[in-house]
């Protein structure tokens, strides 16, 4: 069982408000090591410079969207094994299928609850302590 406070998480979303809400949700389930990026390009740089265990990424973003980030992360050796959860809208079923083809670990439909966030992370890492 992994400790929540040992997880290093990168939150990627172009909306500051959504990043703050995801950060708050992560903090409520015990995650303390949280980085933020506002687009896929920044996220990729950060994931390479400061390795993380989990990327929680929105899809619609400028420069490099969530799918582009997922593909880049999976094709670059040092980041290829990083867990990746995509934040999607309710109607994004096609996106979920495409993300699955590129090796996404899970997806979380917005607007989400803290319990929903915890559940998706635990499906990837096991129960958090």
């Amino acid at each position, binding site marked *: 069982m992994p400790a929540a406070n040992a997880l290093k998480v990168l939150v990627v979303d172009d*909306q*500051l*408000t*959504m990043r703050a809400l995801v950060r708050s949700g992560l903090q*409520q389930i015990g995650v303390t090591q949280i980085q933020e990026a506002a687009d896929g390009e920044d996220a990729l740089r950060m994931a390479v410079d400061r390795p993380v265990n989990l990327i929680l990424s929105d899809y*619609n973003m400028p420069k490099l969207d969530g799918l582009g980030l997922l593909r880049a992360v999976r094709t670059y050796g040092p980041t290829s094994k990083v867990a990746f959860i995509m934040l999607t809208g309710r109607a994004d079923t096609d996106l979920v299928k495409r993300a699955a083809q590129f090796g996404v670990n899970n997806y979380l439909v*917005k*607007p989400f609850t*803290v319990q929903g966030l915890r559940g998706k992370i635990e499906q990837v890492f096991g129960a958090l302590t």
Partner: protein
Amino acid sequence: MNTNRVFQPVATSPGPLQKIHVIQGEYHVASDPNVMLTTVLGSCVSTCLFDPVAGVGGMNHFLLAEQTGRGSEDAMRYGAYAMEMLINGMLKRGARRERFQAKLFGGARMMAGLSDVGADNARFALKFIEDEGIVLTGHSLGGTAARRVEFWPASGRARQRLNAVEEPPPPPIQKAPNKVDLGEVELF
């Protein structure tokens, strides 16, 4: 919170006007000059976004659930999602985030005595617009009257009509008479 500004009436565009009603929980984006987006707001809030270069505009209509404590963050996540849907819809039509101009409407207090969910909605919308660095070009928030909002997405013009009268003052309390004549009532 009731800092209203006056919105100028709009000259009619050539061609038949297509009215699209944006109901609670939905949004609509358009660039056709003959389209007018309209909605009726009580304590809900509507954001009208406009990109003057792309000539694209959109309107949403949302209500944060009345919640307290951590539940209020669930409500904010819903609000942020409602705003994101509108923003993404604008971006898909060729608008650019850095050119967004916003007008906010609604957030009235529709029922005295209950918590002011309208003010919560208005506060959220104003904070979202400020935090996201979007230019606020006008707003009409608060008060106690419902609003009908009309927004022309291709030009960014908006106007509102207040639909309801202000809540009337409570009637004066009358002293009860000392003796009540019940008339002839048969009790059994």
